[in-house]
Structures are given as C-alpha cells and as structure tokens.
C-alpha cells in the first residue's frame, strides 16, 4: 500500500456534498455535450455543471431540454454523432427516460450518467431507495454503486473508461444514495485536471454518424432476422466489461491510491455470518461489524459495487465459506422471491456444493433510516439461523412498523 501511495498523484482534500463531487467530476471529464431538464426530479449535479458552462470553465454544449425523455434522446443523438455525452437524473426522471435507456444500450452508445437513487412515487417521496436504478437493471446499462461521495467521484472517471472501451461500448450509470450522499457533505480527495484528462484520453468510438467517409446506419429496423443477434451481442459486451472493470480499477488505483473491484470485502475472510449490501448502508454496517467483532462474533460484510455486469462467479468465491448471509435490498420486487440483489445472489449460489444459508432484508424504502440497531438486529438473526440451520422466512422487512 505504501508503494501505491508514493505512485499516487497529489490530491486536494475538499469538503464536498455528493452532488458537488459528481459535478466536479463532470467538469474534469468535460464532456462535449450535456443535455438536461432543469427541474425536480433532476439533480443539483447538472445545475452546478450549468454554472461551469456559464462561467466558461468547460467547453461543453449544454442542451436544456423539456423532459428527461428528451435529455436521454439528445445525448443518444450526440453520442451517435461521436461526441462524449452525459446527463444526470434521479427517481421519476430515470423512469421517464425508460424507453430511451434501451435505445442507448441497443445502439451501443457509451453515455455515462450519474443517478441519484431516490424512491419512485407514489406516494410522493423524494428520499433514498434503489427502486429507480433496480427497475433499469435489464436495460443494458452498466450499473456502478457508490458508498460515499469519494466513491461517487472516483466511479465517474472509471465509468467513462469502461463505457468507451472498444470491447464494451455500453452506457453506464454511476449511482449515489439520494440525500444521504447527494446532499451530505464529506471529505473527498480530488485529483488534478491534468491527471484526469490523461487518464480519460480522447473520446473515440469506432464509428460515428459524422464520419462521412465511412457512412453508417444508426437505429435501423432489425426484425426477426437480426434483432436477436444484437441482443446477444449486448450480453456478450456486458460480460466483456468484467475484465475491463478490473483493469481500469487497477490503473485508477495507481493514480489515486484507492482500490476498487466488483465489490469490497470487509472482515469477510473468516466470517461466519455476513451481510451483502449496496451503497451508503455499507458504511454504517462496517461500524456494526467492528462492534460485533469486539464481542468475538465473526461478522463480515460484502459491499457490492458493480451490479451490472453481475459478478456472480466472484461473489460465489468470496462468500463460499460463510455460514449465513443476509442480503439487504433497498428496493422490493413485491412478492417475487425477495429483492433483486437477494434473488440474483441466491440463484447464483444454487449449484454450489455447500451453499451458505441466505435470507433477505428489504429496508430503507423511501429514505427510512437504517441505523446501527437495525443492522445489528439483522446480524443477530443471522446468528440464530446459524444455530438452527433453518431459514424460516425469505423476505424480512427491516425497520418497518408492524
């Protein structure tokens, strides 16, 4: 680690909100085009970015549009024309982009979009949960979750490189937890503009609409004879993103000294019981793990960073020694077999010779606070399951009134 630190670029220690950190990352990326609809449920990210445009700090074409559907449509157009293109959204805004999310991925356009995770109405709610992003899990976008403002900042640059990699060419969303991270101020260590520019390189996609010497068709009709193949090609590109994600994480670690992978393992090596969780709750759970370890309880944590592509082989390997796993989902699938992280992880473990027992906790919907006591309660229940060897209930609602 000390060697890495010596190699790391000089960094500035700043107090920033998650939104400020992501807007700063966008300034350093300096995309050619940003399109956004400037009203709730849009985020402060593009609002801050628009001041950079107005102040002449970035050479970006800023396109104010009339809806989120139009924002995504505009960046699909500019990305197809060969411009590095970004937008940002949240909650119902992402829902309104739905149709065009699939067109972006199906057209293989490496658009990068910060998503501030907030609940979907109704009833009307503006606080954190993952229902917005989880609904888009089959839209063909890479999905990278962040625990805090630092990770949100770091993930933005890596997402650009992953999305634009010639083996991948897929759009990517980088998420943070609404309000908890987006509006909370924390310490963020930032890299200088030149280091970022060198890391990102020049935007280049193999084909674009404005390359008149090599004309192409974008968005053609592809019926029974070709549609299926394009979808399999997308699935293939998503699989190919896996080694690219690791390769770019390693390169970024050399600049920043900060290590990234598909997930972070926290005191997991010798854990008897473990929680798997996305986003900011992982930070709170780390404190619970430390407290339980002081009591001699072998508690561990796995914080999932990359949800698409879903790293099922690596997850199985990391969790195979654990006796009981509790998967925390901040979204529900309403009478499916648990939330999305739970059902996918549980399915991935089906063919293991010795399977951990696994149960699901749906928590924090609409921003319901998840505190140390609730997470500790979940760990204590995992210990009970370890004793009895039996999972009585697949889906538990954590922190809800009975």
């Amino acid at each position, binding site marked *: 680690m000390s060697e890495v630190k010596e190699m790391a670029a000089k960094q500035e220690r700043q*107090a920033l909100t998650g939104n400020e950190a992501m807007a700063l990352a966008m300034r350093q990326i300096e995309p050619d085009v940003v399109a956004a609809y400037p009203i709730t449920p849009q985020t402060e990210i593009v609002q801050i970015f628009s001041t950079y445009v107005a102040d002449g700090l970035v050479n970006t074409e800023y396109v104010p549009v009339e809806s989120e559907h139009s924002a995504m449509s505009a960046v699909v157009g500019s990305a197809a024309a060969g411009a590095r293109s970004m937008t940002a959204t949240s909650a119902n805004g992402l829902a309104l982009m739905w149709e065009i999310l699939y067109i972006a991925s199906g057209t293989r356009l490496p658009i990068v979009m910060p998503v501030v995770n907030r609940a979907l109405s109704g009833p009307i709610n503006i606080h954190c949960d993952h229902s917005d992003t989880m609904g888009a899990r089959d839209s063909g976008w890479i999905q990278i979750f962040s625990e*805090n403002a630092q990770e949100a900042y770091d993930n933005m640059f890596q997402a650009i490189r992953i999305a634009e990699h010639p083996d991948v060419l897929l759009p990517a969303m980088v998420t943070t937890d609404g*309000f908890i991270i987006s509006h909370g*101020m924390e*310490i963020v260590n930032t890299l200088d503009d030149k280091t970022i520019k060198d890391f990102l390189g020049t935007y280049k996609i193999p084909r674009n609409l404005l390359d008149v010497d090599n004309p192409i068709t974008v968005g053609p009709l592809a019926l029974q004879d070709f549609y299926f193949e394009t979808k399999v090609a997308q699935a293939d590109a998503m699989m190919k993103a896996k080694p690219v994600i690791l390769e770019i994480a390693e390169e970024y670690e050399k600049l920043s000294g900060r290590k990234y992978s598909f997930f972070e393992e926290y005191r997991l090596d010798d854990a008897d019981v473990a929680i798997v969780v996305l986003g900011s709750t992982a*930070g709170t759970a780390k404190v619970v793990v430390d407290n339980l370890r002081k009591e001699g309880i072998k508690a561990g944590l796995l914080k999932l960073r990359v949800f698409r592509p879903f790293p099922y082989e690596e997850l199985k390997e990391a969790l195979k020694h654990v006796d009981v796993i509790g998967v925390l989902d901040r979204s529900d699938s309403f009478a499916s077999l648990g939330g999305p992280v739970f059902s996918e992880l549980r399915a991935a473990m089906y063919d293991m010779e010795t399977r951990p027992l696994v149960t699901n906790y749906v928590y924090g919907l609409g921003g319901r606070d998840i505190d140390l006591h609730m997470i500790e309660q979940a760990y204590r229940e995992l210990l009970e399951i370890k004793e009895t060897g039996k999972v009585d209930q697949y889906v538990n609602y954590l922190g809800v009134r009975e």
Partner: protein
Amino acid sequence: MAEMLEIRWHGRGGQGAKTASLLMAEAAAAVGKYIQAFPEYGPERMGAPVASYNRISDEPITLHCSVENPQYVAVLDSTFVGSIDFTAGVPDNGVIVINTTETPEEMRPKLNLTNDTIRLFTVDANGISEDCIGRAIPNTPMIGALVKATGVLELEELLEDTKVKLEKKFRSKPEIIEGNLDAIRRAYEEVKGE
C-alpha cells in the same frame, strides 16, 4: 478529540441551520478533521422547523445513519420551547446552546431539563446579527457561541475558514463578510453559561 462528535442544529426554514452545519463542517475540515454535514429534508418552507447535523472526527467516518444522540445541540429559535423537544437524545455531559435574550437559569425550567450534567448556554444571536449584519440571521453567531461553549474548534480557525467561504459567496458585498465575522466574535464573547 478522542471520539466522534455529533451536533444537531434546530432552526426554522430561512434561519440558516443548514448553512450553519455546512460552515461548521468546512471549518473543521480545514484543520484536518473528517466531517459530515447533512440536513434533514422534508417539505421545507420559510418558518417551518428544520434540523441539520454534523459529525466531526479525527478518523474517517463511515456512518450514514441519522444522528440519535448528539453531544451538542444548537437551537437557532427559542420559540421552539414547548413545541419541539430539542433535548431529545442528548447524553450526559451534553451541551445545549439557545438563541435567546434569556439567561440559562431562566431557560432551564422551561425545558424541563432535569439532567444536571447537561450544560445550558444562551446567546442573543438575533440581536447580535441585527447589530452586525443588519438582519436577524442567527446562524453565524450561533457557530461562534457553540465553538466557545464546546471548544470543538479554535475561534481563529473558525474565523479564518468562514472568511474564505464567505469571500467566495459574497464577493461583491464585503460588508456582509465583515459583519458575519464580527457576529461570530461577539457571540463567542457574549455566550452565557450557568
């Protein structure tokens, strides 16, 4: 600082409780601390009760849940007395600073504050801000009072960082910057304990 500090700010929409927590966090960050500042968001409107929070530590902070047991509480509006229990969750040896013209001895019975280990301070932050800034915006003097009552930062550290932050925001209004710094200094001097 041996352990993590938690602060809760109570105010009404428009009084600057959120800004107070941000300025506090930035001042602590400037001297190398790890910090968090986050408001409690709801249907905010001018005059409605709002709360805002800080965590300050020498070590990185990973907690991302709400603050339940703040050691320090700053109350920007004394008209909350009787309607909002801003003593909730305050542990032994905690500190509560209230913006009021009354003394701590006069305030204590009104709060039904029976825990004698909790120290009560008062300061006329409205009066100070009216004198120094020309408007009753009690947030910056309350930071000064809280810093004096708790020793969480040095006064000079606070003034230096606040000056930098305000210079960015009020480039064209130097009188606002000086007024705020004076308000912090005066509240630091005038805050009364029991």
